[in-house]
């Protein structure tokens, strides 16, 4: 037996297909197809959680995604745990572990329940008014305590071992919701040949047909019709049917996020399958068929376990075969709840009484109740309930007062009417309109290409829903260019036409009362809290929401919004539409981080870019550093070496013998066309007309404001072809910067840009023996100083493959940069090493490159400059063409501040104690004994130990720095003050002779 409350013959589950699961360690029986909620109820378990603030015992309220109370944790193993799962939407699977939340030490005995007794101190706005003093206590006492006591569920501490998928999808018509309305609309749309996606949050399609057994469509039982229709749709090429898939967010231009739960219901999921799949759907048209959500009644102590929505009880009975009680009361302001009583009564459950706040219920339901022998108390209200961990009685009184009659019950069903589910419509930025007649907010002004149909559009009648939906399906397809060959028609019938409903506090919970009549179960908000908020001066519904937390967090006001609004309106003495509705926000129900992140984990978090020679460098033991997305060899430690020793050795070796360096990440842009030089004249400060083919020049690029943007060596390959290099980090933005000017400011120029960064593997060979190393490998290029001077470029072959060979240096040594097509990089790297290492040369990494260039005072844009440095500030004024009529930044350079005295200028710093290495970023002062706060006159931009100089060296930006050369300045550090002497920027080979070998 799968639970004592399972009624033989009732429901749609198969009795033979059983499963077992654990709730707080205790084993229970269930049937395949059960939700955790239905299985617990089948076993008579109503108490499933404790409330957020007061820790009151709470039970299952609904049978769907609107569930505010029954939030559980689901555990597969230590890593796969999910908190805050709605028990009403989570399928049971065999062996499943379910944990209740927000209770300690146990669900039945919860210490936190003392909050319920102290409730008068926890009124709305409580957090805002208390815990304000003393200030320090917030951080150290109050916040940790509150965080421990409040909150729902516990997140897992281990990495998620599941994986998640994502895909973009396009369709002509997206249908959200697969009840009668959604299925009808999808059917009509699909018949036109339009591409249709239909999704529904439940495991099976059908929506309200889960509980409304009285419906027939096309002569079939409604639920059977729904399954057959979904199956028919699924077989069509142009249709995708997605059950267990929640449309959680509706964004601009019909971009809708769907969350498909792929394996969450399976006992042993195929680990190859993603746990969840994110669908990013772009739909030409959207049909919203999200139905309506039943509202609860707001009365004293309306939150005891066993009190639930009438439609939920009907779902548990008609779909899951579970009776929610043995002696059931009904409290309603609406006809639909009667049908729950009728179904239960016919299934053999005692109906204690139907309490109807209205004097005049619908005639049809009243007659049926009489014929079934059910007592109906019209014009009455439930003014209180009894029971500790489950409801045991309801107190019923005539409207307007009088003696209460206590009726013993073990479940109470309630309905205050139906709220059209306008969440998706509202998220689409459509404006809802209040319908005075039915007292509902309905879709009003549409902001996007979508249509609402069925209950979410306020259409109650079944046949009207079908017709409206079929028409919408066709209309939306027509708009995408598809037409139907035949008109679809479907006939639907159900038992009763529903009327009635109320919003706000019911009998006994009015303005003069202090009872706990909950409107938002999840956030523990009572009717009186809304009134308090208004009294405290909150007059905007958005303020009331935030003051009381009504409808916040994961709940998004599914049950509570309309009640809260009605009470606020009443208290404010204004009409409901004048108070306005709060904004519905995405997500409709919570979405896991896994789904949102999907593929972007681990190696796929961000691209990792490696140079062609990476594997060889790795094999050689290189340590890598991240430079943007690139991995660059940082240094190459040999056995027993730490970083410092390795870098010192590499620095010495390059200057004494030679070094080999992977420079492939440098940005490369091919600038081609008859106007190439003219274009570069405008982009760089330098002049390019005079540069002959085969020669190179160091170029500086400014922004229009006059500050240094990037730098690099440019080689002229031919009259109309330049090989431009950029900094590694600047490659993409420099390309964009150049394209921007070319396309929008200088479109008249005949020149084109192509990124060639990755076409070339670049191997720098630097040092006195550089020529000796490459000479045996190079063909067709005279490497002599005379034929191939410093700052030249030649095309030839190396090891038989074509090369662009640059004679250039970022070390101050004789140097070459060998460019070869990238696939050849590894072979050439190995060939060069084979020549170099017998001579005593070595490979070196970026750290050594940094030290060597600093020894020569070569700047690194972005390290020694920070976006406020001019060429003059960096002693690069020589590179600015004085006679040029125009270049980007020419006017910016002449701004008064850029030519004023006292600008920060790049200079060298020599510590008085040569063994002390400064810290990059350290501040510089003129007088270390001045009062705090000191006047800072600059900062250190680069600082290294220079093995070649036998001392520390540094570069710094110092106000009026060039005039301070020779002066002593100070770098205050936490533990000492370091005295430094200002110097020029060149620390090694000041004459610069080494560059010629």
């Amino acid at each position, binding site marked *: 037996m799968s639970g004592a409350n399972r009624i033989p013959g009732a429901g749609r589950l198969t009795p033979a297909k059983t499963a077992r699961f654990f709730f707080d360690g205790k084993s229970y029986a269930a049937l395949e197809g059960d939700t955790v909620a239905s299985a617990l109820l089948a076993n008579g378990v109503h108490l499933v959680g404790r409330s957020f603030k007061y820790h009151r015992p709470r039970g299952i309220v609904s049978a769907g995604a609107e569930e505010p109370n029954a939030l559980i944790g689901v555990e597969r193993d230590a890593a796969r745990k999910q908190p805050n799962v709605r028990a009403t939407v989570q399928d049971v699977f065999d062996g499943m572990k379910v944990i209740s939340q927000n209770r300690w030490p146990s669900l039945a005995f919860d210490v936190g329940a003392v909050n319920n007794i102290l409730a008068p101190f926890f009124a709305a706005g409580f957090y805002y008014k208390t815990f304000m003093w003393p200030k320090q206590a917030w951080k150290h006492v109050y916040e940790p305590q509150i965080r421990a006591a409040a909150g729902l569920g516990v997140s897992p501490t281990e990495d998620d071992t599941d994986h998640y998928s994502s895909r973009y999808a396009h369709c002509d018509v997206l249908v959200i919701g697969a009840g009668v309305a959604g299925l009808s609309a999808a059917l009509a749309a699909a018949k036109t040949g339009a591409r249709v996606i239909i999704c529904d949050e439940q495991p099976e399609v059908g929506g309200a047909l889960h509980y409304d057994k009285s419906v027939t469509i096309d002569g079939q039982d409604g639920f059977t019709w729904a399954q057959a229709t979904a199956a028919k749709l699924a077989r069509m090429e142009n249709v995708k049917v997605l059950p267990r898939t929640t449309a959680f967010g509706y964004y601009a231009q019909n971009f809708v996020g769907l969350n498909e739960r792929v394996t969450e219901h399976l006992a042993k999921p195929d680990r190859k399958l993603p746990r969840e799949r994110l669908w990013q759907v772009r739909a030409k048209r959207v049909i919203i068929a999200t139905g309506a959500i039943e509202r609860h009644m707001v009365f004293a102590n309306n939150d005891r376990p066993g009190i639930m929505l009438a439609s939920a009880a009907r779902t548990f009975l008609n779909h899951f075969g579970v009776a929610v009680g043995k002696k059931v009361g009904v409290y309603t302001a609406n006809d639909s709840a009667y049908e729950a009583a009728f179904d239960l009564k016919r299934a053999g459950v005692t109906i204690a009484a139907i309490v109807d706040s209205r004097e005049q219920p619908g005639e049809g339901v009243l007659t049926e109740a009489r014929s079934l022998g059910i007592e109906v108390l019209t014009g009455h209200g439930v003014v209180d309930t009894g029971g500790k961990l489950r409801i045991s009685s309801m107190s019923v009184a005539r409207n307007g007062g009088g003696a209460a009659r206590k009726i013993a019950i073990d479940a109470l069903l309630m309905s205050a009417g139906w709220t059209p589910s306008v969440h998706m419509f509202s998220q689409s930025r459509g404006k809802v309109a209040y319908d005075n007649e039915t007292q509902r907010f309905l879709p009003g002004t549409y902001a996007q290409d979508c249509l609402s149909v069925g209950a979410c559009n306020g259409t109650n009648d079944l046949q009207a829903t079908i017709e409206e939906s079929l028409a919408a399906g066709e209309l939306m397809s027509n708009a995408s260019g598809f037409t139907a060959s035949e008109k679809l028609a479907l006939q639907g019938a159900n038992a009763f036409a529903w009327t009635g409903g109320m919003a706000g506090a019911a009998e006994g919970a009015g303005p003069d009362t202090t009872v706990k009549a909950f409107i938002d179960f999840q956030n523990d908000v009572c009717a009186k809290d809304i009134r308090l908020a208004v009294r405290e001066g909150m007059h905007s519904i958005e303020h009331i929401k935030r003051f009381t937390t009504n409808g916040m967090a994961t709940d998004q006001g599914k049950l509570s919004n309309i009640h809260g609004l009605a009470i606020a309106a009443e208290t404010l003495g204004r009409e409901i539409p004048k*108070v306005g509705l709060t904004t519905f926000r995405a997500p409709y129900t919570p979405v896991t981080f896994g789904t949102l992140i999907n593929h972007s984990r681990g190696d796929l978090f961000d691209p990792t870019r490696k140079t062609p020679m990476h594997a060889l460098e790795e094999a050689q033991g290189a340590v890598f550093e991240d430079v943007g997305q690139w991995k660059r060899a940082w240094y190459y430690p040999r056995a027993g070496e730490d970083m410092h020793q390795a870098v010192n050795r590499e620095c010495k070796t390059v200057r004494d013998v030679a070094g080999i360096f992977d420079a492939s990440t440098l940005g490369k842009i091919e600038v081609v066309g008859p106007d190439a030089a003219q274009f570069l004249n405008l982009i760089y400060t330098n002049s390019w007309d005079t540069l002959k083919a085969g020669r190179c020049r160091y170029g500086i690029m400014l922004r*229009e404001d006059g500050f240094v943007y990037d730098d690099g060596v440019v080689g002229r390959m031919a009259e109309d072809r330049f090989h431009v290099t950029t900094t590694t980090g600047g490659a993409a933005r420099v390309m964009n910067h150049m394209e*921007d000017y070319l396309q*929008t400011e200088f479109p008249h120029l005949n020149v084109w840009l192509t990124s060639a960064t990755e076409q070339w593997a670049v191997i720098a060979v630097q040092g006195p023996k550089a020529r000796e190393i490459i000479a045996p490998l190079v063909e067709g290029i005279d490497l002599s100083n005379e034929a191939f001077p410093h700052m030249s470029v030649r095309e030839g072959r190396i090891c038989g493959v074509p090369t662009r060979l640059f004679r250039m240096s970022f070390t101050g040594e004789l140097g070459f940069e060998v460019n070869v097509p990238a696939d050849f990089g590894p072979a050439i790297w190995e060939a060069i090493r084979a020549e170099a290492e017998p001579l005593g040369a070595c490979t070196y990494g970026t750290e050594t490159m940094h030290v060597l260039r600093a020894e020569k005072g070569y700047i690194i844009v972005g390290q020694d400059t920070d976006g406020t440095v001019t060429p003059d500030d960096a002693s690069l004024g020589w590179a600015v063409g004085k006679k040029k009529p*125009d270049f980007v930044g*020419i*006017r910016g350079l002449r701004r008064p501040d850029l030519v004023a005295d006292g600008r920060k200028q790049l200079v060298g710093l020599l510590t008085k104690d040569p063994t002390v290495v400064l810290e990059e970023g350290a501040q510089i002062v003129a007088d270390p004994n001045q009062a705090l706060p000191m006047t800072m006159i600059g900062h250190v931009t680069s600082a290294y130990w220079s093995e070649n100089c036998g001392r520390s060296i540094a570069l710094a930006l110092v106000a009026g720095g060039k005039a301070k050369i020779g002066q002593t300045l100070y770098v205050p550090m936490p533990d000492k003050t370091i005295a430094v002497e200002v110097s020029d920027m060149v620390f090694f080979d000041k004459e610069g002779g080494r560059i010629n070998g």
Partner: protein
Amino acid sequence: MLLIYCPYCEEERSELEFRQAGDAHIARPTNMTEMTDEEFEAFFFLRDNVKGLTFERWRHLNGCGRFFNAARDTVSDKFLTTYKAGLPKPDLSTLRPATEATVETYEATESDAK
């Protein structure tokens, strides 16, 4: 995520392929060196940051690579039109829909509540 009509690719593409590139219709003066400080300030630094209709540049960076111009409403986030670089501003009267849907803002809600 927006769809943006690229006037060069002649179809709407996902915002993911595009990058915004600042205000449109600010031509770089040809007489840069003759500009006064005030003129340079106005050209380079001063922007209106309008609430409502704005003209801005976009680049179809991960598409055709072209820079183009767009008229966009900064309140509703809607693109009213896009057009090729170098074309003049489109006629404003043809851009605005006859009945402009009001956008619900916090200020609106607040003033309503008062």
